[in-house]
């Protein structure tokens, strides 16, 4: 038996023994996620056990090195783990911006001490992170940010305001872009720092969105002390870290939306909700034509994602390709949700118990942010035009 087969058998056995029954429903919705952190209330004993057991194996972050809380798994092993989890409908044990965003940046730019200090608590779900990037005056033009960090010898004093900080009100720590040099060109005076959200002077204020929920906050810093040991990479080199992280984030966003085609197709949903004609076709020819087009584009996009991920594995540097994925993936996701609303008709326009409190319409409203957060579609197109097509500056 090959090593991988042995790994598969052992994994299957372990999962079967250790995944609690209520963590096997295959749920992926916001309501069933486990974000962890100091203030987390587990929704069940099963959720708590599942996180603890997976963390003990290093499988909340399977590809990270063991000394930082991971399991050091290879790409093949990770795929096996994911497939075996999917096979029993296992939920993801833990979601954390520390896993998807800070982790990769810290692994690349952090010191050994920083990795040792920050990565294991993320892997164990003990600390929940948020991202402090956008400011009221620095959205698409992120590098013009003005949150100020004054050098006080062994520490900085941070003053300013962030906005669109996802779950800042629930997070324990923040990775944050601050300006350390106001005289340098805008990209060259930025630093990347980490600090505890419980530090004196940090306040958060949730922003109510059109969907009715408040996943984003305004975050204020008033004389916040940040130790210099929590500066990642060199002073004034924070833009390199930010760009790396954004590239990673954009690729990930594209991937998330590209892989959402795995479940029922829009056409199947429409066939069951609207009904079919004598030929077995969705009983609304114009809507059906739009659905067909959306499926073709989704399938084509998934194929592109597969190809890009193989190129990345083979060592090709992705760079602006992540903007291609982010642009198309988010625009496609918006389109799919518009179509879901069209399929649902008036049944999905009410917010009532009958339709899960209007979950479909809330999801639809939420998707409008997809092509804005992490860099707007227009910013992505600009990056593609400049860096891939090398078109002239205006």
């Amino acid at each position, binding site marked *: 038996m090959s090593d991988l087969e042995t790994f598969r058998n052992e994994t299957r056995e372990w999962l079967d023994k250790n995944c609690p029954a209520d963590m096997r429903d295959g749920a992926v919705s916001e309501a069933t996620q486990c974000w962890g952190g100091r203030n987390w209330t587990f929704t069940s004993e099963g959720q708590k056990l599942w996180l603890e057991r997976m963390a003990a194996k290093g499988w909340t972050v399977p590809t990270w090195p063991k000394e930082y809380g991971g399991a050091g798994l290879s790409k093949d092993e990770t795929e096996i783990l994911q497939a075996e989890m999917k096979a029993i409908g296992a939920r993801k044990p833990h979601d954390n911006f520390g896993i998807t965003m800070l982790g990769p940046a810290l692994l690349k730019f952090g010191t050994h001490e920083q990795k040792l200090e920050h990565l294991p608590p993320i892997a164990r779900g003990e600390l929940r992170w948020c991202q402090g990037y956008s400011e009221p005056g620095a959205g698409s033009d992120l590098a013009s940010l003005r949150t100020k960090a004054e050098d006080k010898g062994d520490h900085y004093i941070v003053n300013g305001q962030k906005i669109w900080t996802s779950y800042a009100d629930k997070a324990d720590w923040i990775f944050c872009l601050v300006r350390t040099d106001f005289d340098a060109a805008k990209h060259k005076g930025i630093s990347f720092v980490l600090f505890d959200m419980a530090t004196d002077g940090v306040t958060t204020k949730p922003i109510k969105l059109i969907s009715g929920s408040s996943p984003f906050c305004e975050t204020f810093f008033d004389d916040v002390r940040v130790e210099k040991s929590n500066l990642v990479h060199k002073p004034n080199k924070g833009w390199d870290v930010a760009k790396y992280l954004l590239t990673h984030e954009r690729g990930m966003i594209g991937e998330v939306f590209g892989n959402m085609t795995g479940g029922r197709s829009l056409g199947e949903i429409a066939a069951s909700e609207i009904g079919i004609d004598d030929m*077995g*076709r969705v009983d609304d020819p114009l809507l059906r034509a739009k659905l067909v*087009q959306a499926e073709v584009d989704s*399938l084509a996009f998934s194929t592109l994602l597969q190809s890009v991920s*193989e190129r990345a594995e083979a060592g090709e540097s992705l760079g602006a390709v992540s903007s291609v994925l982010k642009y198309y993936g988010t625009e496609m996701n918006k389109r799919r949700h518009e179509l879901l609303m069209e399929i649902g008709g008036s049944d999905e326009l009410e917010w009532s118990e009958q339709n899960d409190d209007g979950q479909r319409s809330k999801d639809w409203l939420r998707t409008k942010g997809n092509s804005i957060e992490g860099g707007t579609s227009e910013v992505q*197109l600009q990056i593609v035009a400049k860096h891939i097509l090398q*078109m*002239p500056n*205006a």
Partner: protein
Amino acid sequence: MSMMLNEDQEMLREAAAGFLKENAPVSAFREMRDSNSTEGFSRDLWSEMAQMGWVGILVPEEYGGSAFGMVGAGLIAEEMGKHLTTSPFLSTSVLATTAFAKFGSEAQKQHHLPKISSGECLYALAVDEGAKHAPAKINLKAERSGNGFKLSGQKTFVANGHVADHVIVAARTSGEAGDENGITLFLMDANSMGLDKTASSMVDNSSSARLRLSDVEVNADAIIGEIDGGFEPLETILNAGRACLAAELTGCADQAFNTTVAYINERKQFGVPVGSFQALQHRAAHLHTEIEMAKAVTLAALQSVDGEDEHAWRLTALAKAKVGQVALLAAQEGVQMHGGMGMTDAFDIGLYLKRVRVAGEMFGDASWHANRIAEALSF
């Protein structure tokens, strides 16, 4: 399956790109067009391609071919798309070769496959009878007569039908138009009595033919595959052709796009290159995204044909649907972004617009294939 080319495939691509750039650039296509060539392609070019093993790229080695596979055929087709190279590659090297290699009798293989590899004989496949692709609606009748069959009816949009030495005709031996059962594939000499061929020059100056068959007699050994069981083989043959067309269209789209970006980066108005305007940059970036998808689905389709995947038709349908749209979009946007120059014959962009219209229509347009995907997904 890997979505990356292996070393041999990369080498083939480079060889094809280099050779066609040197020997069959767009200027060669223009010369041929302006000389009113009745054949519509260069015999010299064809025999050089045969010597390099490209004509027999799908032919098994024991029949004199290079057996490089469908991905290789697609790479050549893509490069031909970039250069607007006209040749009997699709009809002979892909369609007829697939027919013989996968469904032919031993005698048919031994007789025809070496003649394909050597470049000696040309072939055509006659399927459609109406303006829109509909392989199940074949109505051209084949009736038993003596030891063989007599065929009567009409075919249209037969690529290279005017120059082929042999024609494979999909005919109805039983049932009615619309039935998948009852279709049979017949091989006939292009000079058979009662076979009337009318060459037509298409909008892109490629050549195809209308065929009229009046009691064309063939022997029973002219059948490829089984009597009445020709639909599935035909689909397999067509899928190879569709994947090849998707590759050609991808090449057309890629080149039309690159030509356009190069043009708008040079062309100045208001004292600056028009390519510096965001209105054009965003459209160009969107097109780049679409073309990246076209490349990915094309490769997936070619690989599925090679892998004899039973779901190959889904990937070829996806490729033909997506690439058909992308290529048309790239050419349409290309004309618009060229401004007035895009309307002139002197610039190449219009040639691509015409070519993708024809290649996109062949063996099912984007809507036809998109509909098949919907049917596969049960809606």
